[in-house]
């Protein structure tokens, strides 16, 4: 408060600066485009349609799970159990197939299971008021453990060819995997919900101030509960796809993927405290991580370096805005002349 005099001249400058703010995620998207162009020219085989197909196959599950998880992070919560839900869905899918059920019946059953798993998270967070970070560390262990209880260290791999080839083949030989189409539909639906509906705006409101959101008539508990259910269903869908893509149902499928998804979300500019960020940035973040991994593999850089790059990117992505904000603050508070 004592520095009011020095902050004084900066205050009127604020409103004029506001309209110049770029839409959320544009920095990371620019970065992605630049990287794709540079890698396309510099890395042999990166720009081939075959390679692009592989890249999209690799990013599919991360991008898919990132959709509901972005909404959850925007409300200020988190769900670390998503990859364990993938694993448990995969296990149950394998077990049911082993019991002789048809896949047409198994898939809806697994999606219902995902809804139940998500609802458990959601009820613990919204009804009991427990912190989602702790709850979902618990269910991360619980669901993964149940996956092992269901299938042990066995693998079920005799899924019908027609399903497994669909999962890895592309649309009429274009090199674009079949899975991209439904994924794009889900991305579009999520983007519309988050950025163009009252529901989406209420998610940002919750993330900024839960009390204010509640006082303005938003049913915070119910909205969050449904978000966790959605994350469960989508993760189960990811489990089905993962199983078909690798042709194998295993309890340890997708172990550790939750960190990749969260890295993509944070890299995409969503604040871990909620209330800001957008889906464009998240999708760019997921694509960037997968592209960097892919390009480094093509030039035979060991995967260790990739881990370093992922970590450093993540830290830079969150530190950079702080540093620029600090620098801007210094510039603004400097007396004119």
């Amino acid at each position, binding site marked *: 408060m004592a520095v009011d005099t020095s902050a004084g001249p900066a205050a009127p400058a604020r409103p004029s600066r506001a309209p110049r703010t770029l839409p959320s995620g544009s920095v990371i998207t620019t970065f992605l485009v630049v990287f794709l162009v540079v890698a396309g020219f510099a890395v042999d085989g990166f720009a081939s349609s075959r390679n692009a197909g592989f890249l999209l196959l690799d990013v599919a599950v991360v991008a898919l799970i990132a959709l509901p998880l972005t909404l959850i992070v925007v409300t200020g919560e988190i769900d670390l159990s998503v990859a364990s839900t993938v694993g448990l869905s995969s296990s149950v899918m394998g077990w049911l197939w082993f019991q002789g059920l048809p896949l047409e019946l198994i898939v809806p059953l697994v999606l219902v299971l995902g809804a139940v798993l998500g609802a458990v998270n959601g009820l*613990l967070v919204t009804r*009991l*008021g*427990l*912190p989602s*970070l*702790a*709850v979902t*560390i*618990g*269910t*991360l*262990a*619980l*669901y*993964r*453990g*149940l996956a*092992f*209880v269901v299938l*042990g260290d066995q693998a079920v791999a005799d899924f019908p060819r027609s399903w497994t080839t669909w999962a890895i083949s592309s649309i009429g030989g274009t090199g674009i995997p079949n899975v991209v189409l439904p994924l794009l539909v889900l991305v579009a639906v999520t983007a519309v919900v988050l950025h163009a509906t009252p529901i989406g705006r209420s998610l940002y409101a919750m993330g900024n101030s839960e009390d204010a959101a509640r006082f303005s008539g938003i049913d915070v508990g119910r909205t969050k509960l449904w978000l966790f259910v959605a994350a469960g269903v989508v993760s189960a869908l990811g489990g089905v796809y993962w199983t078909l893509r690798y042709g194998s149902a295993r*309890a340890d499928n997708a*172990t*550790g993927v939750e*960190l990749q998804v*969260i*890295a993509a979300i*944070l890299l995409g500019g969503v604040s*871990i*405290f909620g209330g800001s960020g957008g889906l464009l940035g998240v999708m760019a973040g997921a694509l960037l991580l997968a592209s960097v991994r892919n390009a480094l593999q093509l030039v035979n850089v*060991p*995967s*260790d*370096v*990739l*881990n*370093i*790059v*992922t*970590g*450093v*990117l*993540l*830290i830079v992505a*969150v*530190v950079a805005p*702080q*540093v620029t904000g600090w620098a801007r603050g210094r510039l603004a508070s400097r007396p004119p002349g």
Partner: protein
Amino acid sequence: MTATTTTPTRTPPPERSGRRGAALLQRLVVVRELGILAALVLLIGITLIANPRFLSGQNVRDLMLSAAILVVLAAGQTMVIITRNVDLSVGSVLGLSAYATGTLLANMPGTPVVVAVLAGMAVGALCGLLNGVIVAVAKVPSLVVTLGTLYAIRGLDSLWGSTSGRLQINATDLPTGFKDFGGARVLGIPVLFLVAIAVVVVVGIHLRSYRSGRELFGIGSAPEAARLSGIPVGRRVLVAFVVNGALAGLAGVLYAARFQTLDTTAGTGLELNVVAAAVVGGVAIAGGTGSAWGAALGALLLTTIGTSLPQLGLDPFWRDAAVGALIIAAIALDKSLTDRLAARLRGRNLRGR
């Protein structure tokens, strides 16, 4: 205040009421820790009924050895979580420190054990310093920073392993002195476990009785209030990260001493176990409450579950599921206890008025 003077007979003086609140809180913490201890005793008791030889000397020593690493990590993590932060990089730090210690000993077999331990802790402290500086100076959420360093430090570790030409460090590479340290016992108790106990005692006393320790609780309960009351928040958080890093480094040395065979994947995925141990032990993930003893008991309980399930005839695959259920039960219990405490304190204040 004015109300207290008008009805002095029925109302305790305000400071006493505050002290009673503190006493209640203290009792709650004790009850909470006794609860985990009871769970541990119950688990051991049931397992003993199923297999009377469960508490044989060798079994107990194995249990202590398995628990030692997790106990050290949980004690360090407690300091960080109390300040309303978290360090997810500990598994990677353990891996780097274990590999560094192993390499040092393999290249210079004459290195005394103490120097090896200090070297491992120094590696860890450097990693902790990196985390702490980014968290405290750049004011970036620790969950994100340490997720980044989880990847980066592990990458550094495996890059080192793949370029040094020593993918794995075997028992034959390590000097006898260090291997003896790993297997040493005092009065039948493994030295590695005694080291872990010493860490818990030091961290526990520091958190309970030292000003710099108490201030960590203040920071975790209300960071803004802590800053306004003159606590050097940034410095305290930074030091908590450095100490936690050093302890993760120590855990790396213990890992090398215990297993004597290691590669650059040591400790992968351990971070969630560590946080789980702390949470089960009553350390609130939102900061402000918890103790090193509680976290250590949590680590012991998680380790014991892993070894007692097979004894109970249950498939070891149930372990993770049991741990998950335990975490949820622990935080639900904490929530109901603190809610009840808050209600009682509120009721007391109302009556006081």
